[in-house]
């Protein structure tokens, strides 16, 4: 425990969250695939242009097709009358998928420096939590007679 504390607060700049010490020590590390099972990795590398700089057209096309399919899916479940209360969560889930698809691959967050991911997800998380708490207030609103 005290060790952890030390790691967290150590002043020599070696804590796990610490940012690179010098520009040289950390220039644009490449982010690799999310799952390290090797065959997935291989597939991933194949798709994303060998995983070198950024993904290639094949990969982008796959993403685009995926986005298109999800959009169609959205349209389809929107017409399914039986979903009831499941409809909205599902729609949000699907749009989150699309969102992530674009942000992670088209906007290269997946291949870019993690700072960008940190910045953007921080803002997203803050925005979402702030506005959700705002919306929640309406469900509690009002005083009893």
């Amino acid at each position, binding site marked *: 425990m005290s060790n952890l504390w030390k790691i967290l*607060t150590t*002043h*020599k*700049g070696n*804590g796990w969250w*610490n*940012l*690179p*010490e*010098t*520009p040289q020590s950390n220039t644009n590390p490449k982010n690799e695939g999310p799952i390290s099972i090797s065959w997935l990795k291989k597939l991933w590398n194949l798709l994303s242009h060998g995983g070198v700089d950024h993904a290639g057209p094949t990969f982008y096309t796959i993403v685009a097709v995926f986005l298109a399919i999800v959009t169609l899916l959205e349209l389809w479940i929107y017409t399914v009358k039986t979903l009831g209360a499941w409809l909205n969560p599902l729609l949000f889930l699907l749009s989150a998928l699309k969102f992530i698809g674009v942000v992670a691959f088209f906007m290269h967050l997946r291949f870019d420096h993690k*700072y960008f991911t940190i910045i953007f997800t921080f*803002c997203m998380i*803050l*925005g979402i*939590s*702030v506005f959700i*708490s*705002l919306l929640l*207030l309406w469900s*509690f*609103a*009002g*005083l009893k007679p």
Partner: protein
Amino acid sequence: MTTNSLTLARIFPRPKSGKGLWGWIGTVDHKRIGTLYGITSFIWFLIAGIEALLMRIQLSDAELDIISPDLYNQLFTMHGTSMVFLVIMPLSAAFFNWIIPLQIGARDVAFPRLNALSYWIFLFGSLLMNFSWLIGQAPDGGWFGYAPNSSATFSPGSGMTFWIVGLNILGVASIAAGLNFVVTIVNMRAPGMTFFKLPIFTWMTLITSILIVLALPVLAVAGIQLQADRLFGTHFYNSLAGGDPVLWQHMFWLFGHPEVYILILPAMGIVSEVLPTFARKPLFGYAFVVFAGIVIGFLGWFVWSHHMFTVGLGPAANSAFAISTMLIGLPTGVKIFNWMATLWGGSIKFTTAMWFSVSFIALFTIGGLSGVMHASVPSDTQQQDTYFVVAHFHYVLVGGALMGIFSGIYFWWPKAYGHFLNEKLGKINFWLMFIGMNLQFGPQHWLGMNGMPRRIYTYAENMGWEPSNMVASVGGFILALGVLVFIINIFVSKKQNNIASSDPWDGRTLEWSIPSPVPVYNFREVPEVKFRDDFWFKKYPQTIKEYYHDFDEEEIKNMKPIKPDEKDLGENHGIHLPDLSYYPLILAAGVTILAVGMMTHFSVIVLGGIGIFWGAIGWSLEPVNDPESH
């Protein structure tokens, strides 16, 4: 931008020399921009202060009839709005500009021209908002402009339009500056300066900038919505069509509470530099002060409804926000205690800057504690919209933010202008402000508990409010006298020209290692950073061991104490600085004209659009450095 794109769009020649008026207008030097920010916002401070004094005159006794209710409403609205947006925020920006590049060992901010743009937009926005005085229709809806009182139905004049448009313009300026400083601090640090070696002022600036970047868009949205209501007849806040006035309050305070931390965090940063310097000790618990700042910055997003405890949000929401609000006291307390622990065991020199910082601790604590009182919902229902609130926020704003800023002014003046501010006058300045401030805002606690609502231009005779109000008014004038002494001090000190060395206070951070006044290029050589308080430990290597317990003995033995750099090379000496540019000014003018167009006529919008287009194109085609100048 590459060189082959620059032959286009050079309508008039680029300003060449940094001298004279044109040098200031075209400047992209962070120090000059800092000075511009400082002067401009200080002038607004005087004006907003005079507005306050007028209110104090009117309130000094019951049933006075010196100022009409209409004028009074304009006075407090403009006083509050100006103090927040035209005084404390830009004064902080002046410090960001001046100090951040120096503290992180950079030659300028990341985007010098964007920096100039921020200033110009700020200037035009502030002028526009105050222009409303000249046409006799200053905003009169209070600094949070609650709908529907600020809607076209109930506020038909152009006052509130000026307010919204002005705030939106200022918002653009602030966001641009915020983005700039985020990037500057993340990206322009000297080699070796990791995040946990950043000076605290830089840290607080980073947090403030992030808050600015995230909070001001919300104000912009609220402003756009209200403006749409007023101009196009939409219904965002029109209760007749089902629009909910409470939403405006949420929107405003969703911005507004992060905003108050935007106002206080820079001052906290300043204090965290001044106290260690004059106690001659490093800041106690550096990591905790930083974390406390981060926690404040984050938690500050989830307390906004404490401004709405009397709106009727229901007991569940009220309880939740009461607790989140009280929680903010903890990280703030951590800061206060670490500052005091910094003094502990120190060797405290009572310079004016130090007095101001010490009084920051003393007064901010009072304001913070009355804040916690507000957080208790049932008792806040007796305090909300009374002078108790006025007392609370002036203790944190005047006693906190303003005192901190004055501390910073006395502290960094020698660095910026090469001579000291007169200490004797400084002490007078401090004590007048300190006493005046307590007399002015102390009795307001009692006024509030005695049932005096805020924003009233007059009150009845039998209420028992006269004595306190009289004291407050007298206090206000003592405070003003203090400010006057400061103005006198500026001129006297300039005359006396008590030259300051590079390192007049035995400072701790990088800015004290370079000549005073700071040469244009800041650092002759970009320093390599090894420690927190890098400059101090390099001056006094024998103390390294006390702070860095496991630092290598051998290495310390081999270190020679360094001396501050006293020599100004006079000119750039081959150091490339960004060239001057007019385009920020043009772009800023375009933005302002466009905004004015929103209030007047479509053709003006088009004109503004052209200005923006011209500014943007010229800007992006103009290289940072002109090749022909070499």
